[in-house]
């Protein structure tokens, strides 16, 4: 249990760091997939099966492929050659991020959250389906509407201007 957590945590952090540091965009997406798949493993470890599989389906399956398509549709050869990866003010950005992370970690370590014992998860997939169709049916419909609007909007935005009519 402990070893599994540390291995998965190391994979998450290494994958995230590598995704942000490598030069080639396709490699960055592959590292992003490592991070997302490790997060799915962590969700499984925490007893959230449905979320873990949804993470693999949606993130590793759909979002990563979407990013790969965006990379293929935009010419990025200028990044493969020499040239700065970061913007001129990158030090400010990294500084702000470091400061924010430091504050977060300091306040987490100083907080008095009761440690809490992990309760055995009582969330079967059947329960989740039941809840989604009864108590959470309105948010579910709202998300469906949002996804439809996002899909139509994405198609229209990405369409060439002379074809919009």
């Amino acid at each position, binding site marked *: 249990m402990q070893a599994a957590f540390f291995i998965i945590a190391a994979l998450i952090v290494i994958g995230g760091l590598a995704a942000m540091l490598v030069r080639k965009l396709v490699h960055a997406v592959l590292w992003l997939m490592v991070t997302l798949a490790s997060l799915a493993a962590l969700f499984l470890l925490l007893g959230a099966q449905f979320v873990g599989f949804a993470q693999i389906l949606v993130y590793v399956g759909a979002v990563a492929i979407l990013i790969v398509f965006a990379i293929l549709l935009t010419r990025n050869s200028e990044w493969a050659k020499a040239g700065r990866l970061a913007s001129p003010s990158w030090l400010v950005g990294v500084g702000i991020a470091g400061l924010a992370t430091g504050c977060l970690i300091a306040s987490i370590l100083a907080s008095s959250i009761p440690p809490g014992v992990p309760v055995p998860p009582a969330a079967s997939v059947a329960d989740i389906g039941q*809840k989604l169709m009864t108590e959470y049916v309105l948010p579910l419909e709202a998300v469906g509407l949002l996804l439809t609007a996002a899909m139509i909007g994405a198609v229209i935005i990405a369409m060439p201007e002379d074809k919009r009519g």
Partner: protein
Amino acid sequence: MIPLKAYLVLSALLFGIGLAGALSRRNAIMVLIGIELMLNAANLNFIAFWRFHPGTEPLAGVMFVLFSIAIAAGEAAVGLALIIAIYRHYKTTNLDRMDSLKG
């Protein structure tokens, strides 16, 4: 047993990595990847709190994460469509060259 704070610190680290990438990389797609990392850090927090401190509503944390994943997928689709539209206009994904509105 792994304490709750370990999950929170891991999530804060992932958030910091994503924030640093989103603020400092020059490529628009890399900024989007950074934002995805930050969203995933938030999801990890939801699940950790749900596992360690279930409230009166036993499934609230899982529901939050499911809706958050759905909205993040929509955000990625629209964001990448915007990047493609901007690329068609400027012929670049370099954020430093998208400065038409600069005073």
